[in-house]
């Protein structure tokens, strides 16, 4: 009897796994049909490669000054994106900047997801905590995102790590709401009640049976959030609250370039294009994933 049940669940689990794999494959297939999303994926892949292989791709030391080669225009000999006012090679700074923006994006989105998922799961699963947690979430929503980030930087002080933390906190309320909604929609389904009747612990039910149901909206949220996080980190660095000189951060590069707009516009234009491409890429991939994961959505909208 007992072994029979085990075999049955084993069968069911294998079937479920196959079904899941199939689901992933259809999602990926649908995503690849979306031309914009493919463009986005290519841009993201390039950024990731630049971030990993920065020391090999960079032609110069990104922070080494060379005043005899200052403010060279684009397509100069040996500096195809030109140099800045200190003679630093802009291509090399862009390459290292890709690493910074990717890392700050990943760190802040991950921290935000951890906070948001935990709060959302607790609020959705435990009625007693729901009121309190959701009031805190409402309170966080009462701040325009950049303001919340600035308030946190005011406490922690300026710097890239603090920027990542500040931006992560700003992701928590939205993420918590998404997760809570998903939990509430599955909490009273029969299979969850059955797990409870079988004596499964709350932790087991939440992690093994409720969390996987929230995965699709979380993935879409995280992708879109990468765009916002990278843009916000660049904005905060532009304001002088994030990366400090001589760090090759894209937003800080634009801020530094502004003073040389008359003589060397490429100092501001080039890093701006880099930010725009990356943010655009995460936005369209996020859009594409949302459509791919939810077949009922009208693609025209």
């Amino acid at each position, binding site marked *: 009897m007992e072994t029979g049940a085990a075999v049955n669940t084993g069968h069911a689990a294998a079937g479920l796994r196959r079904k899941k794999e199939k689901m992933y494959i259809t999602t990926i297939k649908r995503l690849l049909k979306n031309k914009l999303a493919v463009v986005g994926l290519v841009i993201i892949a390039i950024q990731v490669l630049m971030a990993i292989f920065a020391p090999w791709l960079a032609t110069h030391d990104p922070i080494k000054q060379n005043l005899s080669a200052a403010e060279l225009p684009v397509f100069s000999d040996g500096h195809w994106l030109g140099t800045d006012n200190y003679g630093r090679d802009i291509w090399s700074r862009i390459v290292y900047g890709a690493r910074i923006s990717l890392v700050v994006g990943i760190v802040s989105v991950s921290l935000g997801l951890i906070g948001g998922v935990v709060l959302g799961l607790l609020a959705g699963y435990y009625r007693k905590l729901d009121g309190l947690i959701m009031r805190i979430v*409402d309170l966080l929503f009462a701040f325009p995102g*950049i303001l919340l980030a600035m308030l946190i930087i005011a406490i922690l002080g300026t710097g890239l790590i603090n920027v990542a933390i500040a931006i992560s906190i700003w992701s928590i309320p939205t993420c918590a709401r998404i997760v809570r909604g998903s939990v509430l929609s599955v909490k009273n389904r029969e299979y969850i009640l059955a797990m409870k009747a079988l004596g499964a612990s709350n932790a087991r039910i939440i992690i093994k049976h409720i969390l996987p149901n929230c995965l699709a909206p979380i993935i879409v949220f995280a992708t879109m959030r990468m765009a916002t996080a990278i843009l916000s980190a660049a904005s905060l660095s532009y*304001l002088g609250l994030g990366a400090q000189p001589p760090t090759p951060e894209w937003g800080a590069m634009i*801020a530094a370039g502004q003073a040389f707009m008359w003589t060397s516009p490429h100092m501001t234009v080039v890093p701006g294009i880099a930010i*725009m491409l990356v*943010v655009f890429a995460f936005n369209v991939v996020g859009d594409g994933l949302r459509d791919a994961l939810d077949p009922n959505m009208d693609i*025209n909208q």
Partner: protein
Amino acid sequence: MMAGMIVRRFFQLILLLVGISFLVFTSMYIAPGDPATIIAGPTASQSDIDAIREDLGLNDPFLVQYGRYISGVLHGDLGYSYQTKQPVWEAIMTRFPNTLKLAIASIIVAVIIGVVAGIISAIRQNSWFDVSSTVFALAGISIPNFWLGTVLILIFAVNLQLLPVGGLDQPFYTAEGLKQLVLPAITLGTGSAAMIARMSRSSMLEVIRADFIRTARAKGLRERTVIWVHALRNAMIPVITVIGLNFGFLLGGTIITEQVFAINGVGRLMVQAIAARDFPMVQGSVLLVATLFVLVNLIVDIIYTFIDPRISYD
């Protein structure tokens, strides 16, 4: 019904404002750096610092200090700047008109561009206009607005010399004042225009497929009347929420745009205050912007129920 809803929302608002002020006050309370030491300056003796500390009531329990801050706020007293010794309220209020001007000009730009582009896209779905405006909308969301501002300055102020490089010191009803507003408003409004355009498009697409539109056409109404009177009114309901949300978003965005165009607004004040660890100034300006943000959202909610009586917030 309506009155009851407004009263209920009003109480929620007060609770939310208490929460905001508590969060802002607590943040500054736990922030490193002793206010008394900062005020006293580097040459002060320990007894001077202790005197200032006693004077400011910094030895009182946390809640007493919070209560004192709130009662000050209610009387228009936000404390004094560590840096300039100026009253915070005064410093904010001299800069606030610029921020408001910028936010309003930007929302006007965003609504006009966004709604018009969205509607034309919807009624000419898949035309070249639709495709290019969709691409522009995507670009608009992805462009860092500080960079857009810089590039606009480069083109229109540096190269063509049509518009001023920055500043916002002339009254808005003069030609000079309007000229100063153009580039900042476009810079700040573009992202919101893109979001409003996307929303208007999808909402309009949904409405023009509805039965009542077919009926209106069947009655023999002119296409223009059908679209701009019958369809628009219904399509605008979700768009208004997006506009409301964007107004709040714009209030946050002014922080960056003010920096690009060297506009003396609350946002720039805040950035300078954070860099200088001028806590009363940070506290006051964050409190003001967050309060405005919440108020705008409340107003949007109320307008929403007026436009669409089906919605209730029970």
